[in-house]
């Protein structure tokens, strides 16, 4: 795909993440995706919550709104309603998305608003120094909960695009995020990508094995399985519970039968925020109360 943008066009501040943090990979892949898809920086908005990963908007030269813990999704939704002509990416940590933001994660997809949500799923609360996140295994630093299941919850919440990737495989991540953006661009609605993200500081080891080798050994690309049909939600659920020796990545589910909210309600060609800024004549309303 030829484009007038290069990765460097998206460069901004130097990240303050720990050296080696998987968030660097996500940042770099995002820049690459935007560049190769030819998305002008000023036509992209990244909305994030609060956490290590949520600082990402400060490190990339697209529009960025770094908001509060757990609220990236509804803010991105409001933004997309007002400016459906822009590419809107919502991003947040696993605490952000699945814990404090779970009420939105379980409901925003039902609107089928055309945004891509990326979860930086590192199994910990990075920024508050390593407490267990919702996806942490039971027992991890005193965690009394069983882990949150991002893929099944996303499916059950009605996301029309559900995928998983990880920071050890940037090419795969690039592929998946591109597909997610395309899903939205094509007007099919809400896309979710669970990104298993390396936290070098607080969660470098999974079941006694280094994070990187653990997943490298087990990653299993659904799109390489000729029998895998991402339009079959039951299959998606089934695969979502596969873990252990095989760790499925790729597009679990893609439903192209539904319209995105902004398409269905005719917002795309008439963005509310771009309509004339002026007083309206409300005589018709007032007259009702005569």
């Amino acid at each position, binding site marked *: 795909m030829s484009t007038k943008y290069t990765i460097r066009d998206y460069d901004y501040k130097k990240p303050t993440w720990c050296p080696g943090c998987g968030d660097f990979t996500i940042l770099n892949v995002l820049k690459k995706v935007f560049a190769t898809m030819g998305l002008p920086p000023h036509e992209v908005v990244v909305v994030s919550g609060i956490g290590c990963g949520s*600082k990402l908007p400060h490190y990339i030269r697209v*529009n960025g709104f*770094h908001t509060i813990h757990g609220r990236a999704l509804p803010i991105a939704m409001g*933004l997309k*309603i007002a400016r459906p*002509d822009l590419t809107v990416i919502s991003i947040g940590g696993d605490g952000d998305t699945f814990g404090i933001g779970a*009420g939105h994660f379980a409901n925003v997809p039902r609107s089928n608003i055309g945004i891509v949500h990326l979860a930086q799923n590192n199994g910990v609360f990075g920024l508050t120094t390593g407490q267990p996140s919702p996806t942490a295994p039971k027992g991890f630093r005193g965690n009394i909960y069983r882990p949150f299941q991002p893929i099944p919850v996303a499916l059950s919440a009605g996301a029309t695009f559900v995928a998983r990737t990880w920071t050890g495989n940037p090419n795969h991540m690039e592929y998946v995020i591109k597909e997610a953006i395309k899903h939205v661009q094509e007007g099919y609605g809400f896309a979710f990508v669970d990104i298993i993200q390396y936290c070098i500081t607080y969660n470098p080891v999974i079941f006694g094995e280094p994070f990187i080798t653990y997943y490298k050994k087990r990653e299993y690309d659904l799109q390489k399985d000729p029998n895998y049909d991402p339009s079959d939600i039951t299959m998606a659920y089934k695969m979502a519970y596969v873990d252990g020796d095989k760790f499925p990545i790729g597009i679990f589910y893609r439903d192209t039968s539904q319209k995105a909210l902004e398409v269905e309600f005719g917002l795309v060609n008439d963005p*509310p*925020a771009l309509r004339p800024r002026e007083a309206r004549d409300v005589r018709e309303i007032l007259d009702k109360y*005569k």
Partner: protein
Amino acid sequence: MVGMRRFRGISWMIGGAAGLGINTVAELLSKALVREGFYVFANIEYESLIRGGHSYYRVRYDTRPLNSHVDYVDVLLALDDPSLVGDGGEHSDGHVHELHEGSVVIFDRESSRVEDEVFEELESRGIYVYDVPMTRIVREAAAGGKVNLVVRNMVGFGVSTYVLGLDKDLVESVIRERFAKKEAVAEANVKLHDLGYRYAMENFRDGRRIILDPPPTKEETLIATGNHMAAAGAVRAGLRVWAQYPMTPASRIYRYLEEVKDKYGIFLVQPESELAVINIAIGAAFAGARAGVATSGGGFALMTEALGLAGIAEVPIVVIVASRPGPSTGLPTRQEQGDLRQVLHASQGYYPKAVILPGDPYEVFFDVANAFNIAWKYQMPVIVNYDKHIAESFYTFPYPDQDMYVYEDAKWVSEDELKSIREAGDNYKRFKVTEDGISPLMDLGTEDLVIWSTGNEHNEYGDITERADERVVQMDKRYRKIETFKRELEERFNYYMPVKVYGEPDAEIAIVGWGSTKGVILDLLELLSEDGVNAKFVQIRFAYPFPTEAVKSALEGAKLKVIVENNFDGLMEGLIRENALIEMDQSIRKYDGRPFSLEYLYDRFISLLKEVRVVG
């Protein structure tokens, strides 16, 4: 209650279980009265349930403006037994004690279990009981068809129309208008009204009627609630995106906006919670769309964290808070002015904002519209706080002159500025430090330039900062907006009216109030002047920025300062003490979940005056 003091105008009431259609009749009657040229004040008391219980709706009207209700009833349309004699107090104590000599009761005795003695006693008190077989009339009218007994309200309405001597054709046209979309329903209702009217005419020809002549000239007025006018005001101001989660008494704003959303191009969303509501609005406003939300105190509690985000990220957001009695779920359908401090101090830290306190639906219209101007001009959250008494009561007020609201836009970054940013290879400064504290906005999608914003403390570009000096610079910048706004409030005092004074400006008695007590205090003022008591009413309309100087000068010289609040804690009294260091001499508070009636306030005020005079 014999010998209760009566005031001008007529006080009609309809009582009945929820689901019996008391709202419909009260609102139709009110509309008809206004069409005849009367001034109406109508307010409802209802329980937090869907069917049953006991609700009642008061309609008071006169040939001159009035702004309050009274506790006594001239005409009572009682749709069920509890409306008359109560049900042992579970839902109702009944309304017979609110009747006086000469009052009329419309009641269906054959469908009732109320004992005869009750009626004998009523008659002995000089009360006219008009026994109307409303249920039978409905049954007969249906003549074997499907019977919906709810519509007996319409029969009682017809009787009321007769007793009050209203123009029957006009009333019928109002009924037809209401059911315009379903002609058959309209005609059925007109017919039942007619049957009631005729029944009354035939059976009570010689009975008492309580008739007021309409005023000779008719001012152009509206009859509407605060919620109606909130919706109208938001539309007037160019609203684009509205998010709301239902909560009494704010819920209806959504419904009113729904009616007009297509015409005005407003996108409405009812998401999963108030957390979502406020954040959706913040997203939309960040994107450049005028966006607003409405809620009550409990929903507002869930919005507080995000308000702080709007504060520091300077997102223009309008939040309507229609209050009800707390704490917690409290009395969800009742009245209290209890959220003033909550809305003032929502969220950690502090940030520029405005908190406006309209005193009636007319003010709501302009205050909400102006809230959008203020929010966008100063890029900050603006809260409009009123309460159930304003939200859901029908007031009669002059047709607002739309043009008294002027759309004022945000300061947008100029093309020249954009050009020079581009030429310098610089980035847009979302939080540019300026003299007036206002950083010009830029549209998302502006060629080659991007916006960064954050809820963290930041530098001019919207990058996170942890520097002490940058913190101070941005904090000062944010608060310079309030200084700028304060200057505007002074310069355009007569436009915003942060404080209004009614009555003689140099009266020795100053009655201070805010929000929904305005109506009853205005009516009290009239009574006092009849009694020869010279008092003025100081209405405080801004809680933030607090109009300290205006309040001081309004209270200067007053020998007796009395504050009236519909709450327990004296929230405005505290604000005045804090800001103006002025102590009130007396406070009249009410916290039983009900608004002040005119006689209640009058009585408390008079006994207070007596006390003070004895002591003083």
